[in-house]
């Protein structure tokens, strides 16, 4: 007998009360050789989203960061990470969105999901660009509209 999974509800605007324990800046899992991903999360009008929390999952690690008042985030992921599965939660999302970030064109090219399932005119939204510093990547998320980030359903 299959049970029905409990319904999702929004994290609302005040999630930091309950989720701050695992926010990366408070868990100090940063390491010197980590790769850094920075970016901005914006809504359908291009307005920054200041009350979003992002989770970066790899096959063996997890990192969580909230956005700042200007909609920006910064997360450290382990050296050598090629791809993260990313969940975003925010007020106005009744359930999380699922996306991915590839840390290079090569990582994207090697991955079946990106090379086969995603329309090639949208796959660029999943690829982080080299940033201004070493081991730094820039990846922005657009929730809705033109240049909307690719989101997945399973």
């Amino acid at each position, binding site marked *: 007998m299959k049970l029905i999974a409990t319904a*999702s509800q929004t994290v609302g605007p005040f999630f930091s009360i309950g989720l701050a324990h695992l926010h990366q800046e408070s868990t100090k899992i940063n390491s010197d050789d980590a790769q850094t991903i920075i970016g901005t999360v914006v809504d*359908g009008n291009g307005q920054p989203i200041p009350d979003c929390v992002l989770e970066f999952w790899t096959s063996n690690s997890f990192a969580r960061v909230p956005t700042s008042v200007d909609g920006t985030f910064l997360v450290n992921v382990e050296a050598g990470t090629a791809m993260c599965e990313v969940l975003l939660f925010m007020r106005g999302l009744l359930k999380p969105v699922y996306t991915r970030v590839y840390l290079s064109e090569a990582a994207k090219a090697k991955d079946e999901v990106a090379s086969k399932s995603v329309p090639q005119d949208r796959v660029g939204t999943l690829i982080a660009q080299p940033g201004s510093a070493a081991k730094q990547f820039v990846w922005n998320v657009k929730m809705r509209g033109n240049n909307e980030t690719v989101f997945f359903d*399973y």
Partner: protein
Amino acid sequence: MTTPIEGREARKRTQPPYLFPDYVSTQERAPSKPLILLPENSSSLFSPVFGHASVRPADADLTRQHGGEPLGERIIVSGKVVDEDGRPVRGALAELWQANAAGRYHHQLDTHAAPLDPNFTGCGRLLTDDQGAYSFVSIKPGAYPWRNHENAWRPAHIHFSLFGAGILSRLVTQMYFPGDPLFARDPIFNSIPDEAARTRLVSTFDWRTTKPEFALGYRFDIVLRGPKSTPMETDHR
């Protein structure tokens, strides 16, 4: 055994949509393009292990985090976390947050003109036990106004965040209280199309866990999605 397609169709009824215009902020934040469908097994089944050292038993008592006791109606919330096959999810991290008894969050952006309670932060954490069971002590949160529509009020609720195996088991939800008169006009609660699925977010009063001269008991059971059963598995009940 349900197929992935059937599962997806069922979730359209038992899970909220992204765009639900009555909940106004979905209109600028919900994805507008078709989601890309992927097989369930293409996602990570990694199960993060959190805080077995840092989650303390005291984190499951929200009434004892300060010098004095918070105001409000003391409650004991308990339940079981299982997967879709009914198997207990053991050692799962649950994170909890809620408003105080007056309906005010301990958060700088909450501008509701209700008093803060110096003895209540409204943050809890716990791990489920070997049967997937959990329990925590808190106070009943108050309803509070928001600006979604004219005279909008959220029914009293406690936020739950849970981790299972992998990203598909990840769940953030809200537990409500039985008989709340605000359900009918709350777009967040009513975003779930299926009435039974919606009702399962409402806790039930639980006489067995109610402690004499101490606290009222509420029960809230949780089912996490996945992971997909493997064909080799024979221990299904």
